[in-house]
Structure formats: C-alpha cells, structure tokens
C-alpha cells in the first residue's frame, strides 16, 4: 500500500512536469528564435518501441546521420541547423495524430515518417487540414518510405512530399525487367492483405499480364500480415501451378518465412521482392535468398564511391548497414531548398521543393510538381555470391541486374497540385 503512495507521488510530479512542458517548450522556442543561430526542428514520428521498433530505429539512425552531414556543411544556409525530435508512434495512426499536434504546438514545421501507409494517410490528411485551418502553424510532411500510390494520386496534397518510389513505380520497373526475361513464363503474385499488398497485386496484374503471349499470371494470393505460421501450403500451391517467378510485396518476418519455406521445400522460382534488402531480412533468410531479387533506389554494390564513403562512415558509427540512401537524399534536398528559399518558412520551402530538379551521385532527380513524388534512379538487383560488399554472416551481396533512369519511373497521376495562397 505505502509503495503505491510513493508511486502516486512520482506520478503527480510527472503530471506537473508534463503540464508545464508546453510552457517550457514555448519559452525555449522564443529563446531560440531570438538567438542568431536558427534551429530547424524536424519531428520524426515512427515506431521506437514495440515489434516494429527495429525499423523505426534504423530510420532514426539514418536521419541523425543525414542531419549531422547537413549541419557540418551548413548546407541549409549559414547558421541554420537541423535538429531531430524523435517521437514514438508505435505505428498507430491515432497516436501519430496526437504527436503531430504536439509537434505543431512545439513550433515544429517539418515532420518525417515512413513506416505504415495507415499512419502516412492519417498524417497527410491531418497536415492538410491543419495547414488550411491554421496557416501560421503550417507543416511540411516528408515521407521517406510509405509507398501507397494513393498518397500521390487520389489523396495527394500540397504539403506531402514523397522521397521513395511508390509501389506502382517500383512495379513498373520490376515488370519491365520481368517481361524482358524470356526464361520466365508463369508468374505468381503473393502479397500481404492490406491496401499496400492490394495495390501491388493490382499493379502487377496490370503491368505483367498481357505483355507477352508466353507470360501468364498463374495465381494471385493475399495473406493477412503476420498471421501465417507455415507457408508450406502456399508454396505447394505455387508449385502446383508451375510458377517460375513470384512477385511479392511481403516484408519482415512474412517475407523471411516465405523465402525460407520455398528453399526448404526445394521450390526454385525467383522471388521478386520490394523489401528483401534489409540486413535483418537477408540475415534471417540466409543462403535461401540466393538468386532472389529486390527493387530499390540504391544497394551496397551500386558503383557510386561518394555514397560508398557515406555508407562506410554510417556502418562504423551505428554498427548497422547503410540502407536508406533516400533519407540522406531527402535531408540534403530539404537543406538545399531552404538555402534557395532563403527561409525556413514551410510555404516558401515547399514552393521550392515542388518541381525541384537536382542531381545526386546516382544521377538526375526531380520532385514532380504535379504530385510531389520524387523521381529517382531505381535498381533491380539479385542476391549473389562473391560481391565486393556482402552481408555479415551471409556470403551474399546485391548485384545490379538492371538500372532505370529517374525519368523511366514516371507514371501518370490523377493529381495536379497547386500552391496554396
């Protein structure tokens, strides 16, 4: 009983501190504004606890790395520094909205997020409403990994900028490669059963079916995320229809289990994936992943020495493999836009970002003015032995089998954005 009394005491202290926090934050904000050095806070709203924490943590490390680079070079303009404010949303849309509110209260005008299209839709929608209702607290939303095409089509808005190719763009690249492979005749499409998987499936059927007389789609299946323990029956089904390629948007544990089940049962089709590239996944899949393909904007064996150096620095600092080149790209681009705008005002910066053209060590890139989707070069690569860069514990590395120019990934959009007044 008395223990609890103490506990309660602790709690009420917490409440006081907590209620006082906005006031302090406000004071702090005023103080920093008065000073010469201008700090631009970027709120990072992603999972930092719970089952998806490792992905969120990886994103945070990349953001910190990218921000350190920008600050060291004063790339956002003289005296202008970026600062990351990490917020744990547990991939929960409702919690994300509350955190967005908190960020807005704290005077933050830039947020970034990547995990979960559900969160992305919620944030994009809330940001648009907030900016309309309260323009002085406008927020720019930088999306580094949520790939639902809807975000830059039916549900697009001015304040959302996406730095990852959407699932349709990735499928366009995958499909053009697949259709060109004369040895592939029967394709099986296998996806997680939520909107991302559904859009992958739709795109795959549209882009792969009817392209070549001897190339058919022999099956399309969706399974609930994280609910299947044993994938063998699904492999048996694929095997029964004679599939020689499997296109899958599955990720994380489901992808690992799928690829391992295929290897265990001796099913030899090539898996064309969206998310094989994460170190955690490659390590879990092990040699079973040999020969399987992924689509990405970069991988360790892309010939770009400047990024190699970056990757080496990142690996040394965080004991993790550099993975999100696009996060560095995104922060660099934001810094460049601020420098060009000569301001950190969200509207001014967003006007610069919209339609911005620039080049990176990988080639020319463009943020489309009509839907704020970044066009960037894409690579299809397969896990192969004897590569210069291989994964720790697994003697495999990604090997480019096809590169696409940024322009080649452009798709029609239903969106046409206009800057707000």
């Amino acid at each position, binding site marked *: 009983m008395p223990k609890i009394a103490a506990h309660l005491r602790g709690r009420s202290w917490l409440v006081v501190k907590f209620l006082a926090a906005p006031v302090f934050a406000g004071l702090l904000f005023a103080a920093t504004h008065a000073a010469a050095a201008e700090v631009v806070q970027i709120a990072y709203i992603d999972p930092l*606890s719970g*089952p*998806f*924490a*490792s992905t969120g*943590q990886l994103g945070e490390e990349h953001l910190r790395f990218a921000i350190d680079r920008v600050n060291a070079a004063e790339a956002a303009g003289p005296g202008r520094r970026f600062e990351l404010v990490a917020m744990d949303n547990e991939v929960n849309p409702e919690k994300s909205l509350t955190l967005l509110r908190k960020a807005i209260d704290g005077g933050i005008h830039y947020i970034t997020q990547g995990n979960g299209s559900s969160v992305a839709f919620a944030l994009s929608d809330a940001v648009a409403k907030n900016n309309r209702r309260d323009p002085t607290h406008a927020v720019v939303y930088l999306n580094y990994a949520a790939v639902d095409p809807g975000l830059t089509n039916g549900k697009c808005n001015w304040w959302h900028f996406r730095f990852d190719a959407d699932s349709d763009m990735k499928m366009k690249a995958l499909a053009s490669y697949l259709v060109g492979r004369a040895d592939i005749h029967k394709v099986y499409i296998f996806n997680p*059963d939520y909107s991302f998987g559904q859009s992958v499936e739709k795109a795959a059927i549209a882009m792969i079916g009817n392209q070549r007389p001897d190339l058919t789609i022999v099956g399309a*299946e*969706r*399974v*609930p995320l*994280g*609910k*299947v*323990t*044993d994938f*063998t*029956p*699904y*492999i*048996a*089904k694929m*095997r*029964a229809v004679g599939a020689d390629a499997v296109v899958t948007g599955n990720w*994380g*544990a489901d992808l*690992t*289990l799928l690829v*391992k089940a295929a290897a*265990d*049962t*001796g*099913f030899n089709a090539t898996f064309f994936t969206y998310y094989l590239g994460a*170190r*955690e996944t490659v*390590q*879990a899949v*092990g040699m079973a992943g040999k020969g399987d393909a992924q689509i990405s904007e970069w991988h360790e064996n892309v010939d770009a020495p400047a990024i190699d150096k970056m990757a080496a620095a990142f690996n040394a600092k965080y004991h993790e493999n550099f993975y999100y080149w696009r996060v560095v790209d995104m922060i660099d681009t934001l810094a460049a836009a601020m420098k060009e705008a000569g301001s950190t005002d969200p509207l001014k910066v967003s006007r610069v970002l919209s339609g911005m053209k620039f080049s990176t060590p990988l080639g020319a890139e463009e943020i489309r003015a009509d839907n704020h989707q970044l066009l960037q070069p894409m690579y299809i690569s397969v896990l192969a032995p004897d590569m210069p860069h291989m994964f720790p*514990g697994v003697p495999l590395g990604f090997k480019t089998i096809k590169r696409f120019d940024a322009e080649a990934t452009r798709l029609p959009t239903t969106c046409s954005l206009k800057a707000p007044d």
Partner: protein
Amino acid sequence: MEGLLLVLLNGLVYGLLLFMLSSGLTLIVGMMGVLNFAHASFYMLGAYFAYTISVGLGFWPALIIAPLLVGGLGALVERYGLRAVHRHGKLAELLFTVGLAFVIGEIVPLIWGRPAVPYRVPAVLDFPAFALGGINYQAYRLFMMGVSVAIFAGLYAALARTRLGLVIRAALTHPEMVGMLGHNVPRVFTLVFGAGCALAGLAGVIGGNVFTTSPGMAEALGAIVFAVVIMGGLGSIPGALLASLAIGFIQTASVTLDTPLGVLLGRLGMAVDPHGALAEITIARAAPAVPYLLLVLVLVVHPRGLMGARAD
C-alpha cells in the same frame, strides 16, 4: 489425388506444429486454470536461450538446457508472482501474465537487440528427407513432428497413468483434500507451471530456427495457441491434439480453394451481391481466419470445447 495427399500431409505437419506450440499452455490451463498470456513470451525465451547456447555448445545441448532454464524461470514466476495473486482470483492471475508478457517483451530486445538473431536449423537435419508432389520435406520437419508426438505421448502418459498425474488432477478440483492427504499443493502448482513453461521453451528451441527468432516472435505466435487450447476443451491434452489437427487440416485445405466466399455463402442460401465486397474474398484469402471461425463455431455448438470436461 496427389493434391489431396499433399493437403493431408501439410495439414498434419502444421497441426502437429500447432500442438507443440500450444502443449505447454494446455498443461497450465488444464491443471491450474490459469490462462497464461505469457506463454508466447516463454516460447520466445526458449528460442533466445537456445540461440545463445547453440552459439557456444551447439543445438543438441541447447535442446536440453534451454527448456530447463525456461522451466526454472517459470517456476520462479509461479512461486513469487502468480501465487501471490492467486487469492485475488482468476482475472488477477490472467492479468498478471499479461503484464509479465509485456515486461519480457521489453527485456528480450534489451539483452539480444532488436533485430532478429541468426538462429539456424542444425546442419545434421538440414536436408530434404523426402519429396511429395515436387515439395521437399526437410528432415528437421520430421524431427519437429516427432517431438510433437513425443510431447503428446509423454503428457498423456504422465497425467493419465502416473500417481503424480493423479495428484495433479486432484489438486485442481479438490485442493484442500489433496492438501490433507499430505501433498504440498502449492509445490504441485509450481511444478506444473514450470513444466508448462519448459514445454513453451522447448517449442521455442525447435520453432525458433524454422521461423525467426526476433523480439516480435511472441506477438507473431499470437492468439492461435489460445484458439487451440480453448477449442480442444480447456486443458484436455487429447482435445488440444484434435483441435490442432482440425485447424491444420482445415486451414491447409482452405488455402487450396480459390472459390470466392460469396459463392459459398450463395450455396448456403444467403443472397450475396456478386460484385460486392464479400464476393471478392476467396476462401484461400480467408484461410488464416479459419482457426478463429472454428473456435467460435465450436464454442457455440459445444461450449466446453471438443473434449473439455469443464466449462470455465
């Protein structure tokens, strides 16, 4: 024909796997009446312990040591946690295990890190043992099935045929009586809980390398083990086996059916809009929901589960 055989075989493999995963829970639920929500956490601990041990000593020592460690931990939890909440009733016991699952879920990544650990199938068993319809079956799968059958036989024999089993079952229904006969009832409960956790740990040792050993694995195991235990009838070992196999066969069979659900409902006499949302869902897509559908159906028709003796 081959297709049917394949479904049966895959169903059997999956069913036995489910039984292995849920056997420890069945034991604890059946003998103590505690719905142990931390079951999946002990399963996860088993996998992690086995990984750590196998790095140093190899898989086979891990197979013995890890379940013992997990069982010991379980016994401690019972002795110093569960026993204290016992007097507050069943709900408190259940909630205690919920909290415990939460805490273990946080501590595991602190020790082993957030990414998955490379815990692999032992090389001796990593080869295709036989093939059916072009699908290879790993020797390790056979090993897994063997362990599952052994667990069943062991549990069944221990509870039904030995004096200890008799005492345990009596302790559940008539604790005072058994206490008066000179048996230490609390110690019996500690023993049972420890044994249940050890079985969870064993499932972790064997399942952790086939699946992935990561902090998310407890959550991934999820409610399915509860579906098995409840459907089988709380605490009935043969019931759990029956439920596992039923789920295994039906779910595996549903995977092969691409008939839309709408057509099925139509045949059952329900009017379904042929272009509506329901018409698009195939039975195969709904397959992973099958265990829960079965669970609800079984409980509606037969509230005590397939072979349960008690209703609560």
